């Protein structure tokens, strides 16, 4: 059976919230309109539901989405770079090269200034 970590985590979360609300599997399954056996499989991370059923579960528990799932990680600068087209990546490379030259020139200027001070 194909399992994914996310489905397992969500399954565990559903079981935990159902128990906190003192609902049986049958009661929760009735509320969201699926079979008890399917809910049982969902809690074990073996069953994927339709989007509408997932939304009904969230509504039934009346929970914020942050309680349910882990946040999507913020993209790193490298992620952003890798999503660019090759042409755009070249522009970024050129800009970085330009910035490096600029910073080196600044450093040279500073060291020349230092010389003057000497």
């Amino acid at each position, binding site marked *: *059976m*194909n399992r*994914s*970590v*996310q*489905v397992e985590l*969500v399954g565990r979360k559903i079981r935990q919230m159902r128990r906190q609300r003192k609902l049986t599997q049958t009661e929760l399954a009735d509320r969201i309109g699926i079979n008890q056996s*399917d809910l049982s*499989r969902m809690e074990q991370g*073996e*069953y*994927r*539901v*339709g*989007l*509408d*059923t*997932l*939304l009904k579960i*969230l*509504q039934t528990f009346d929970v914020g*989405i942050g309680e349910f*799932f*882990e*946040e*999507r990680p913020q*993209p790193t600068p490298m992620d*952003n770079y890798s*999503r*660019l087209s090759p042409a755009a990546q070249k522009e970024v490379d050129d800009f970085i090269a330009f910035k490096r030259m600029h910073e080196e020139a600044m450093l040279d200027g500073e060291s020349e200034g230092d010389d003057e001070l000497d």
Partner: protein
Amino acid sequence: MGRARGMTSLIETRIEEIRQQGLRELQANRPTEALALFDRAFELGPTEEQHEILTINKARCLVELRESGPAVQALPMILMRRRNARHAFLAAYTLQYKFRLEGDYRKAAVYGSQALTLAEQNGGEGAAEVLLEQGSICVLDSRTEEAIGFFERALAMLGNQPGRELSVAIARQNLGYSLLITGEPARGVELIHDALSRMEALGADGFYPESHIDLCYGYLELEQLEMARHYGELGLAHAVEDRQIRNAHYLLGEVLYKLGRSEEARGHFEALARYYPDFPNLTNLLLAFDLRRMVNLKL
């Protein structure tokens, strides 16, 4: 006496002609027209044998139209009575299909299993179609690895038989999708492309949107985002079912988000959210979380 027998035979022939016309309408996805023809055949006074097969044909139309009626209710009786092996098979196959459409996958699988046994007893005719249905039921019921087994058996059975090209294409398409879900996206995408080429060769354009949307999913899994976007847009342009439109918006939203085009992604998620007015935060939920692994897109 001879004249009366001749007349009876003429009526039987006429009923069979009308029934065949009805079957052609049914195959062309025109169940209402087919239903009218089967009703006309009933009016002509069919024999018991003809009455039974017309009942099954009529039931199929009603199932397609998501309706019920005495013809549908008669199917379990026809199956139990088994006065004609072919009719019993067709009754079981129609019940398998009916319960699949109604979302009762356990009953659908039970009737599918009976249909398969009957098909094998009748020399195998129709067995591949039953296996295809069983596979689809497994996909809907999150039993994707079992589905793969059914689709592979269907393909082995169909081989290169002439006249079965569309069934082969559908089996390859479904197998491809199942492989995407079970972590073999490259093989899955390859099979779906092959199925799509076969469907295009047959002009079976009703099947293109599902293939395009599945390819969008597959390329998204492969992180080939521009390809995913291409097929997602094609799928959206030709989608006919609400489910297909919703899936295309959802997948395009994911693709565009990954491409760093958050505003375009939001547009697709908002389009999807319009189908769920009771859930005002859906757009934000989709922007925050990738639900691909949790949701069954075939439901």
